[in-house]
């Protein structure tokens, strides 16, 4: 029962004739794999979108910190400069920028109102710090800051980060689980419908056997047909799912919250893996099913 998988592509068309072009199970195989491909692509896109969202939440927060200096007048600007110097010379810190007072006030608007007596407020100086991949050695950084700018305090948002991180990890887990389940169910449905297709053609298998057909010949005909059906169904299902994803209402400006279902850059590759997965499972499943039925049919 061994044969070159390449015949799947180039094949000898003659052996195809022996399999009924449309059987009870043809529609079922095609539709089931199409529907599962659709769901899988949907789940995949959702998973990618959620992944980005979680990245945004956790990574963005993780890679920022704030230094706040509470002082007045000259002391403030001197300490600001000192703190900036310390920060910029610390390995693991990518950048450190003074936050503009107006920017700061804009952030405070909801709590303090827009008609604030801006200049008269003794609000502290804030420095926005972007950390590198590795991050700095926080303890020694704090010591150095204390020495150069005694009124500065370092906040790496860790108290804010923990729950967000936990939530985004839960979300990731949830979606990854759904994706894995969908993939599993897709494979099982394909396996079962391959089995069903072969089972409903046992009579044909028996007849071909008695007429002197090799097992590999019979298997090839069924495997090619079933793989084709499942793959075509999966391609259509994927196409429909991508159409649905692309035409989904989106608001790019809201990207912090949820920019809708969308694929970006290299993500476009993943949906195409779905029909490939379906094709491979259909191929493997129908070969196994063919082997089984060829051995149990006398």
């Amino acid at each position, binding site marked *: 029962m061994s044969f070159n998988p390449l015949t799947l592509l180039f094949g000898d068309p003659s052996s195809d004739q*022996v399999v*009924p072009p449309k059987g009870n199970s043809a529609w079922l195989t095609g539709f089931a794999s199409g529907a599962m491909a659709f769901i899988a692509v949907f789940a995949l896109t959702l998973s990618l979108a959620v992944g980005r969202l979680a990245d945004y939440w956790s990574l963005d927060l993780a890679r920022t910190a704030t230094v706040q200096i509470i002082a007045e007048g000259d002391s403030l600007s001197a300490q600001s400069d000192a703190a900036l110097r310390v920060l910029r010379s610390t390995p693991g810190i990518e950048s450190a920028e003074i936050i503009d007072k107006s920017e700061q006030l804009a952030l405070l608007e909801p709590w303090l109102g827009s008609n604030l007596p801006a200049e008269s407020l003794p609000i502290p100086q804030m420095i926005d710090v972007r950390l590198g991949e590795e991050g700095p050695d926080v303890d020694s950084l704090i010591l150095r800051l204390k020495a150069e700018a005694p009124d500065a305090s370092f906040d790496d948002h860790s108290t804010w980060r923990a729950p967000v991180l936990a939530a985004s990890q839960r979300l990731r887990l949830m979606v990854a689980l759904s994706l894995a389940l969908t993939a599993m169910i897709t494979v099982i449905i394909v396996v079962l419908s391959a089995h069903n297709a072969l089972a409903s053609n046992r*009579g044909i298998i028996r*007849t071909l056997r*008695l*007429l*002197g*057909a*090799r097992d590999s010949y019979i298997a090839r005909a069924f495997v090619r047909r079933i793989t084709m059906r499942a793959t075509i169904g999966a391609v259509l299902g994927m196409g429909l799912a991508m159409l649905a994803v692309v035409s989904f209402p989106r608001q790019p400006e809201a990207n912090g919250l949820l920019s809708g279902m969308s694929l970006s850059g290299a993500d476009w590759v993943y949906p195409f893996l779905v029909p490939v997965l379906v094709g491979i499972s259909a191929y493997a499943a129908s070969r196994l099913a063919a082997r089984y039925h060829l051995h149990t049919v*006398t």
Partner: protein
Amino acid sequence: MISLKNAGFSYGTRAILKDVNQELAAGSFHFLTGPSGAGKTTLLKMCYLSLMPDSGAIEVLGQDVSRLSREQVTQMRRRIGVVHQDCQFLNHLTIRQNIALPLLVAGKNIEDYMDNLEDLLAWVDMSGRADAYPEEISGGERQRLALARAVIMDPDIIIADEPTGNVDWEMGQRILTLLVELNKMGKTILLATHDLNLIRSIKGRVPASVLRLKDGHLSLAGARL
């Protein structure tokens, strides 16, 4: 061509064949008869490698069937033409395609056999129905179709299980004539039938022997007809 040596067979505990010994020489013509349920089909199935004997041995075309690889079984089946009692066809193919099926599965070039195929269709009087589908033909037509399919590959052995059960006397004679001619060309023929008149009608055309299966034993019944 076919030799049974103490061959025995049972379905579960029901013994169907007991110590059957028989030699079918190359080019011989044999009828197989016996009451319904005696085991004729079972015996034929062993000769065309669809069943293996429980005990004893069967040699077909000089080889012990129990020692064959799957590939050898396939090669051997291409040299044996069979008319099964329940003629099975592929319902999505036409009559002509069904007759050509053994060529197709053996990888032969069907073009080379077209004349042969049309001759056969004419012989079994099915030329007019060649483009119909198996579900659109009558019981007798199915049997004739099965016979045409059995001989298309020019096999060395032809095994026919009740090939005339559903055809009228004239058609039965025609089928017998075809088999007699094939036998004269050197093919070994084994034909199971209930129709004693059919058996009698061969007298004087070729030397044929009649095997009678009863209670699991095979005996030569030629003299009694």
